[in-house]
């Protein structure tokens, strides 16, 4: 069996980040990516939090093909026929260094693959890995296109479902309960139109999340990110919630209905559909993170369940890049010491534990349970919008006292035992 220093299964952000680190260290790396090019098969909502990873590969980000820094944050709680939008325009978000940027994966991943190749790493696209080769508990390489190729270390960066790694028992088989379905459209709009519609200064961007009716009350939400000359508009919905729902909905109809809403239609008006994509998202939280390393292998990015949906913030790309970085460091050290066994690679998990990756996942460990409560997506958006609607309504009859409207509404929708219990539970997050 022919052999290389390191094989990376999957050329998404996690795999490419690891490859970049290894190639920079002068190690021989082979990234195998099944897509026509890196980015061809990768889906994200649209926003990369750069703050957590700015100091990782600091030389890279200057030239990265980001779309727009997010300076306007919006969230809409959608009730039945009434919705409430909260907007945050923060001077701090609008000042460099910006904490987050909208991105398009077709561009970002291809660019990162280029950087890997500049460093002498090999990114081989249009090739699928068929199997991870094991010898007992040890990963010894891969099978692809009928060839067996050995490696001192194999980095598994195959993304969310982990089909190859679960087949050889490196992680559990994926279940619907621990995943959400995400799908989106990219609609092209002239940059000036985007700036007008979202009240943005030249080059700045907005991120807008939606909760409630958008998923018919199922766990999940809608999102809208502004890119340079396009917007990313999509929906994330829990797979289990979809399956449990008695009145079945086809996922794509949610997005069609979303676009037709009276307050969304003018935003997407005239946009040309240029891309449609769908993908699974890990939602299991830290409880579902598999063993991160073993003899001859490491797991990074979505393949290791390193993603965090905390309702207002959705993160996975920064985790993917950071885990790739720490994986590369661990492998380079292990190679130096000539020990690629589990013991030699153990540093990987330690560095993830002392970095934001596992710390943030640990902090958020209750979120998956909280999010399983459907009332978060039905009762609350409705209650908030319903109360505000009452406050704004002037009818033909004499109005109630403002305070009694508020107190009545709050008492009815928020001051009951159930809500208090839920709010208490939310303290855990």
């Amino acid at each position, binding site marked *: 069996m*022919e052999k290389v220093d390191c094989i990376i299964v999957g050329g998404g952000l996690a795999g490419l980040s690891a490859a970049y680190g290894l190639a920079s260290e002068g190690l021989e790396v*082979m990234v195998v990516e099944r897509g026509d090019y890196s980015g061809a098969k990768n889906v994200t909502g649209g926003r990369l939090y750069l703050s957590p990873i700015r100091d990782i590969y600091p030389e890279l980000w200057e030239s990265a093909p980001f779309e727009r820094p997010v300076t306007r944050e919006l969230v809409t709680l959608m009730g039945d026929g009434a919705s409430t939008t909260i907007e945050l325009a923060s001077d701090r978000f609008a000042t460099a260094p910006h904490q987050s940027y909208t991105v398009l994966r077709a*561009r970002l991943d291809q660019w990162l693959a*280029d950087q890997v190749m500049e460093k002498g790493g*090999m990114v*081989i696209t249009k*090739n699928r890995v068929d199997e991870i080769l094991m010898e007992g508990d040890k990963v010894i390489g891969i099978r692809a*296109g009928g*060839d067996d190729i050995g490696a001192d270390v194999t980095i598994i960066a195959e993304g969310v479902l982990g089909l190859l790694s679960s087949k050889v028992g490196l992680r559990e088989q994926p279940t619907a309960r621990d995943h959400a379905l995400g799908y989106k459209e990219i609609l092209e709009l002239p940059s000036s139109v985007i700036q007008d519609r979202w009240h943005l200064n030249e080059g700045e961007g907005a991120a807008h999340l939606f909760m409630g009716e958008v998923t018919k009350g199922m766990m999940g939400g809608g999102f809208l990110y502004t890119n340079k000359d396009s917007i990313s508009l999509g929906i994330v919905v829990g797979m289990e919630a979809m399956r449990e729902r008695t009145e079945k909905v086809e996922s794509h109809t949610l997005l069609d209905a979303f676009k037709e809403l009276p307050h969304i239609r003018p935003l997407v008006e005239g946009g*040309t559909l240029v891309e449609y994509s769908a993908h699974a998202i890990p939602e299991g939280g830290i409880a579902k993170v598999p063993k991160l390393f073993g003899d001859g292998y490491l797991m990074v990015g979505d393949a290791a369940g390193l993603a965090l949906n905390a309702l207002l913030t959705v993160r996975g790309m920064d985790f993917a890049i950071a885990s790739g970085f720490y994986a590369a460091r661990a492998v380079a050290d292990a190679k130096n010491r000539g020990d690629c066994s589990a013991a030699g690679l153990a540093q990987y998990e330690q560095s993830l534990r002392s970095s934001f990756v596992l710390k943030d996942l640990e902090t958020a460990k209750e979120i998956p349970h909280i999010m399983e409560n459907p009332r978060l997506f039905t009762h609350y958006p409705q209650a908030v919008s319903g109360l505000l609607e009452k406050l704004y309504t002037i009818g033909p009859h004499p109005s109630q006292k403002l305070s009694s409207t508020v107190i009545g509404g709050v008492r009815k929708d928020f001051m009951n035992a159930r809500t208090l219990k839920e709010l208490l539970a939310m303290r855990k997050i």
Partner: protein
Amino acid sequence: MDIVVSVKTNLDLQMIRIKNREPVLEAIPYKTGDLDKNAVEAALQLRDAVGESKVIVLTVAESNRKVRETIKEVLAMGADEAVLIVDPALESTDQAGVARTLAAALQKIGSYDLVLFGEGSSDDYSGQVGPRVAELLGVPQIGYARQITAGGAGVLVERSMDEYIETLEAPLPAVLTVVSEINEPRIPSLMNIMKAGKKPTEEWSLADLGLDPAAVASSCETLSNLAEEQDRKHIMLEGGAAEQAAGLVNALLKEGIVGR
């Protein structure tokens, strides 16, 4: 036998969208010319049949990044060396400029017995580059090769003409262009792709070839490059199924699409 194969990197035409009747060329992935891969395959087979031979791939482009994947692919297929002519001045060249550059590169390479081309490129498909190079070098050329064997005066070639097959021989050096039926290009293995990066690769600029940017400047100016506008016929057929079917047949007959 030293065989040089001229290989072009094309835009992946399937990824091009039309917007306002113009192609959107930004961020389109690149792709190795289809027939160029047939030419490489033919060179490899010939090399292995003749022995004591090597295959050099030659390419011309405005940037290294554009051709990097192409070169990797053809070296992984089995070519022995690569020569890249890279110069920003090639951004606005045309078939004549590319041919001039290739001819100058071949002269600099010095020893070659065969120069293989695709019959036409996967994008512009003008079919000019091979014949132009032969003319500039003053060597014999045979187009549309469907089979190449070493022998005769140098090389024996079956040409694929539409209605018949012509067999010609030519002394070496010679320029040949190949058609797709000549072979099925091999798909490189992962390990061969890894090793391709280590094969000898030379990169020359136009100045290295003694060429002035003016020598490759395009003599044509593109005035317009618009996709054809297709208007729908807007014919609505009404009535029952039988009536609609009859209407459809009539409309197709009228257009001359069926019944000729």
